[in-house]
């Protein structure tokens, strides 16, 4: 496969028989293991070995790589919009080029690289679509623009007005967050509304946080579990946009108001705002992931991350998936990956229990959700189902 430059360090061209692949997957380290798993993921022989005794809930491999080659292909392009809101802007840095000196350009480049590396090295995933999709980021969007978004194809970052927000590339987890939206769309999708939308948001926070933790080489107990640390301008009373560890505590400021995120089903917010509270109720699955990762200890991207990634790829994750169903899918993923009745299985169950979602593989129940919360324009909606 033609491979212009960069990222050769992760390459592993495998033409290996399945038993050897399995051995590498089990005993190899880092990139080797990831590449073997990646190759395994496109090889049905290995797949049937691996899941011989369990339900094969995984998607059929949709992209067959020729032979059994596993190779990383990180292709980043960072465009400078120079304050305009019309795309694409000027190409400022492409794959393999050195730093430009424009901090937003370079942060976007490095953040995309760190995200690509996490997906590739840990999960054996080749970019957003697992087929080497090019990563395009556009910086300096608009003037004083206080946001970052994923438009379905590219990441867009504002410089922030400086009074409330700094530039949005400052937080590597926000870059990972935007890119993870592309991955969720590719694997899910999860519709951007109500509980499925909150799961979509949570998935982006989880992988965004994992990008940051891996970049900083932090174990779960050392990580701050904040989303968007450094983003709030000086003088704003707060430390980040969200806290996965303690949802609802990220900021409390006269202008911004108070972080509205719940960390438990009893505080679930019913609202029509924000696509049905997608950035609000994501606090609940976010905290479940934090609890799982800290319970398991070590690096969060390892077991906890693998369980979440496996769940994201599970065919039972329907586009309208609610929290309870997702919890069950993670439990099944934990059992599939690490065995039934093991510490991981128990930890997943405990984590969901602590956020008010008791779950078993057979059935799920949802804790009582109180009516009407104090968020503006809230309207009653149906009880969330699994």
């Amino acid at each position, binding site marked *: 496969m033609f491979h212009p430059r960069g990222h050769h360090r992760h390459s592993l061209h495998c033409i290996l028989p399945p038993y050897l692949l399995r051995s590498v997957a089990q005993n190899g380290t880092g990139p080797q293991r990831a590449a073997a798993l990646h190759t395994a993921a496109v090889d049905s022989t290995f797949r049937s070995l691996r899941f011989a005794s369990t339900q094969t809930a995984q998607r059929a491999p949709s992209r067959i790589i020729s032979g059994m080659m596993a190779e990383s292909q990180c292709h980043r392009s960072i465009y400078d919009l120079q304050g305009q*809101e019309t795309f694409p802007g000027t190409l400022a840095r492409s794959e393999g080029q050195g730093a430009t000196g424009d901090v937003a350009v370079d942060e976007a480049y490095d953040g995309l690289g760190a995200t690509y590396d996490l997906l590739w090295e840990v999960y054996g995933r080749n970019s957003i679509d697992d087929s080497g999709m090019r990563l395009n980021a556009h910086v300096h*969007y608009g003037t004083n623009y206080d946001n970052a978004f994923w438009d379905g194809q590219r990441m867009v970052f504002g410089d922030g*007005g400086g009074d409330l927000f700094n530039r949005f590339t400052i937080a590597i987890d926000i870059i990972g967050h935007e890119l993870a939206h592309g991955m*969720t769309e590719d694997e899910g999708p999860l519709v951007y509304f109500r509980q499925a939308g909150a799961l979509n948001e949570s998935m982006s926070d989880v992988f965004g946080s994992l990008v940051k933790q891996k970049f900083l080489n932090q174990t779960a107990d050392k990580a701050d579990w904040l989303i*968007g640390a450094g983003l709030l301008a000086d003088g704003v009373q707060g430390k980040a946009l969200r806290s996965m560890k303690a949802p609802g505590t990220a900021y409390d400021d*006269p202008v911004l108001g108070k972080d509205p995120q719940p960390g438990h089903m009893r505080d679930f917010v019913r609202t029509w705002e*924000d696509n049905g509270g997608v950035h609000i109720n994501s606090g609940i699955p976010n905290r479940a992931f934090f609890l799982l990762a800290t319970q398991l200890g070590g690096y969060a991207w390892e077991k906890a991350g693998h369980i979440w990634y496996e769940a994201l790829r599970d065919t039972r994750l329907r586009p309208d998936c609610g929290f309870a169903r997702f919890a069950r899918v993670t439990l099944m993923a934990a059992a599939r990956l690490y065995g039934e009745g093991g510490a991981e299985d128990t930890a997943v169950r405990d984590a969901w229990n602590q956020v008010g979602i008791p779950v078993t593989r057979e059935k799920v129940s949802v804790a009582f959700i109180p009516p009407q919360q104090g968020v503006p324009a809230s309207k009653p909606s149906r009880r969330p189902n699994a």
Partner: protein
Amino acid sequence: MRIELKREGGVAFIPGLNRPRLFNLADLPPAQAEAITRSVQAASFFERPARVGTASKGAADQTRYTLTIEEGGRRHSVQLLEPVEDASLRALLDLLKQVERTAARAPPNTVNR
């Protein structure tokens, strides 16, 4: 002329920024009020459909603005999805954001009703 600007979405739900902002042109410095009036006309605001722009598949964290303008007995709302491609509507939005920003860190009640 009275204008209400409401934001939704973005990478975080920030309650303080989610509150609608009201601009009463009578309370603004004449130059600003005049610029806004011209911009509303240039954008043919009252002839616009209720929604401008559609989210593409899989898009997330985009900001949605709802602009409501009351003038001489008529009232019209237009929802704009970021990025706003229409140049004249974008100019109007930018202008309102500028006015808003000048009062951004002042006590909440000065811009807000």
